[in-house]
């Protein structure tokens, strides 16, 4: 049974993928284009459905946690707010004032605060970086960072640092940084291409099987 499924799963993945690719690269062939659009729309729906699977997963994990006393309280909290928010959205709609309230009073502050936490982490990283890795890259990295810091914001109550803000920063940000970014971007694109191909070859089958 599993054999059959494994085999056909791979077929499904490969066929659907190849069809969509053809739809992208052969805009002249209406069949593929239509199929691509259709498949992408299905993907859209499936992605939405997957959200519920994810919620179910979240739910089951935390209901299991209820068993052990230690984290039970937190899990209860999570489940309550999960269900509460969802039911609220269910009846009021996600754009209702009630949902806006929840969003503004909980999601925004917590997320931005989590972001804010990073400020300290990043500073902590900079102060330690050279202690761990005093190599060419790290030193270049730190020096660049310092230059950009100096060039981006003026010294408090004093004003912009001459040379850095009006000449050095723009140059660095627009030439070498952009160049490196382009290089990395391309590399990542190549990697993405290969990863995608591995999937379409059925060599990687995250949907189970291998």
């Amino acid at each position, binding site marked *: 049974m599993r054999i059959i499924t494994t085999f056909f799963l791979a077929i499904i993945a490969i066929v659907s993928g190849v069809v969509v690719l053809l739809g992208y690269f052969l805009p002249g062939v209406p069949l593929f284009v239509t199929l691509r659009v259709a498949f992408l729309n299905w993907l859209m729906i499936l992605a939405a459905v997957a959200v519920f699977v994810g919620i179910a997963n979240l739910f089951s*994990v935390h209901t299991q946690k209820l068993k052990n006393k230690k984290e039970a309280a937190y899990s209860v909290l999570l489940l309550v707010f999960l269900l509460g928010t969802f039911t609220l959205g269910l009846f009021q709609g996600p754009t209702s004032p009630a949902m806006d309230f929840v969003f503004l009073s909980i999601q925004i502050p917590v997320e931005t605060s989590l972001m804010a936490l990073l400020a300290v*982490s990043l500073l902590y990283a900079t102060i330690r970086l050279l202690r761990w890795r005093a190599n060419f890259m790290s030193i270049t990295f730190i020096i660049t960072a310092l230059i950009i810091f100096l060039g981006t914001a003026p010294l408090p109550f004093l004003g912009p640092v001459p040379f850095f803000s009006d000449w050095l920063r723009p140059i660095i940000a627009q030439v070498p940084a952009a160049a490196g970014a382009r290089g990395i971007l391309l590399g*990542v694109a190549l990697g993405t291409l290969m990863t995608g191909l591995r999937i379409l070859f059925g060599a*990687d089958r995250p949907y189970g099987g291998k």
Partner: protein
Amino acid sequence: MSNVNSELILYGGLALLIVSAVLILVFALLRKEFPYALREIPTFARMRRAIGLAIEDGSRVHFSIGRGGLNMPWSAAAFVGLATVRRVAELTSVSDRPSVVTSGDGALAVLSQDTLKASYVAAVAPERYDASTGRATGLTPFSYVAGAIPVMHDENISTNVIVGNFGLEVALLADAAERQDNFTMVASDNIPAQAVLFASGSNPLIGEELYAVGAYVQAGAVHNASLRVQDLLRWVFIVAVVVGALLKLVGIL
């Protein structure tokens, strides 16, 4: 952009696609012709050791495969993460505490479960598979990370393999791992995140190294073949861009 460009994009893209697809096969066939070793990336050596230690002292390995939705171009990063899970989970299936995979997307959570299950089956320990080890800890980037942090704090994690699509928020994961004094290998296809991780000092993979993980953990032949093609295309592009620049300079292009 002009239509000329858009056509160039389409046909060039298609050509590149076919070429690379064929090349993967060719390299699969001609492996012997050019013996091929991979450049050292110390992070991988440390990861091997850390995972070994995790098994040895019965602690957990925690994978985080990111929040890249399957419907976004960067889902590839998550696939790399899953390939890593598939490979390493087999080993950790031996550990007293099987590894746990966290993800920030419903579909990814399902995939992580499928992958874990496959690993256990392959390890002849299907009974050890527990669906609750493949988790979506949150469905938005930050809630995902926020949900993963407690996992890292509570579940006797000793090793974190964070491979997937993350934004800046990944720094929170790296930070939490550091607080636990855990080994952490972090790789994101998001370049700003890479910059942050590079500074944050845990073992980062930069640039496209993320996509080489499969080959470095020997997840399979195609991983190496594709990495080879990646190297080849890299040079094809370099040559093309240099030649193109010259032609442009002369005014031919």
